[in-house]
């Protein structure tokens, strides 16, 4: 076992120190060390998007991010955005539009959607599909998720 090193990062607005092996991924650290469980291991290769988190405002794959490289960075997950206006609107519309089925992709999906609406307040349906195409959902067929993101955008614009 490689020696663990202490790393400090901002997780959901709080400074945390965590001991992790140099090759540990952020996904492993979040789940196994910090028990922040909304990021899921769906493929561990960056394809499925279930582990997507926001670092310094941008969505990235936590399964492809080494924890050691997050030193000093700002990491956010669904748990840490409970007061976020954009996320709250997305959550509400996901529930109402039927964008949630098994829910395993939902956390990552919301991270991508949150970033999109922060950058583009009124995206077209195509823009939504483009921004969220790296998050796989096997249940919904996507239609209701696009509905939810567009619905949230509309509500936020009012």
């Amino acid at each position: 076992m490689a020696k663990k090193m202490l790393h400090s990062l901002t997780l959901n607005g709080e400074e945390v120190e965590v001991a992790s092996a140099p090759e540990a991924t952020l996904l492993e650290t979040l789940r196994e060390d910090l028990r922040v469980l909304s990021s899921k291991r769906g493929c561990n290769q960056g394809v499925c998007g279930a582990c997507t988190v926001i670092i310094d405002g941008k969505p990235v794959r936590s399964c492809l991010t080494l924890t050691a490289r997050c030193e000093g960075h700002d990491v956010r997950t669904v748990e840490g955005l409970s007061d976020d206006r954009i996320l709250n609107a997305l959550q509400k519309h996901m529930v109402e539009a039927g964008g949630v089925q098994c829910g395993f992709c939902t956390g990552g999906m919301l991270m991508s959607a949150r970033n999109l609406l922060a950058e583009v307040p009124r995206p077209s349906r195509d823009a939504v599909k483009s921004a969220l195409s790296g998050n796989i959902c096997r249940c919904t067929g996507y239609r209701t998720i696009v509905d939810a993101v567009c619905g949230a955008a509309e509500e936020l614009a009012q």
Partner: protein
Amino acid sequence: MTELLFPTTVEEAVALLAAHEDARPIAGGATLVAMRNAGLVESTHLVSLDRIAGLAGIVRLEDGRIRIGAMTKHAETASCEMLSGSLEVLRKAAGMIANRVVRNMGTMGGSVANADPAADYLPALACCDAVLTIAGPGGTREVSILDYVEDWYETALGEGEIITAFTLPAPYAAASSYRKIARVSGDFATASCAMALEADGQGVRVAIGACGPGPIRDPEAEAALCGHLGDPEAVATFAKALADQADPVDDVRGSAEYRLQLIPRLISGVLNDISKETV
């Protein structure tokens, strides 16, 4: 057992790579960490390039050429307005890599160093006549993208060397485009085609991706095609010349035969797209 090292200069990075046998650079990590997760690579030392100042970003040089730092993320390249006209092909290719989230991670240096034959940058850079700047134990050297890929996953990059930048000729006003055939959005290419019109509008530069170890370009055939872009027979002859140089494989994305079929169809298709753009 891995150690992660954080050099702050290129020289330091090169020295660290030389000091540890089995050391590797890590850029965006999008490929390297995925491979580690799958148990396909083990390195005793990873040399992180993300704290080296000046390796990321896109600048216009005084002579109009464009320089892209090796650590520039795909997302930045995909939205860079300096990459217009004859260089738009590179911006388009960047925008078709994986998906938005992976584009926030992966870097041009990482992609080109990895030299996946199906990677989107290789044909796009080949079409742009890009030059790589490579730093290593023996100092810095420049390598043309056309000489860069030597065989399947084998490149001009030597032991302990890192790519630091890509230099592109100054853009000029002419259409250029990139077309990628993939099974689904965000998949690696089954075959792809990068194309740019010459400044005089008479000729094109064309590179085919995912149909051999490296991008396929043929300047001689391009010269022969010059002035005959509207002639379907000349285009067919040109396409055949490129297809003859292809060395495609059968894989889960498609058969070798399909890839050979796609080459002329892609060339006509993209030519069609850029002629439309020109009118």
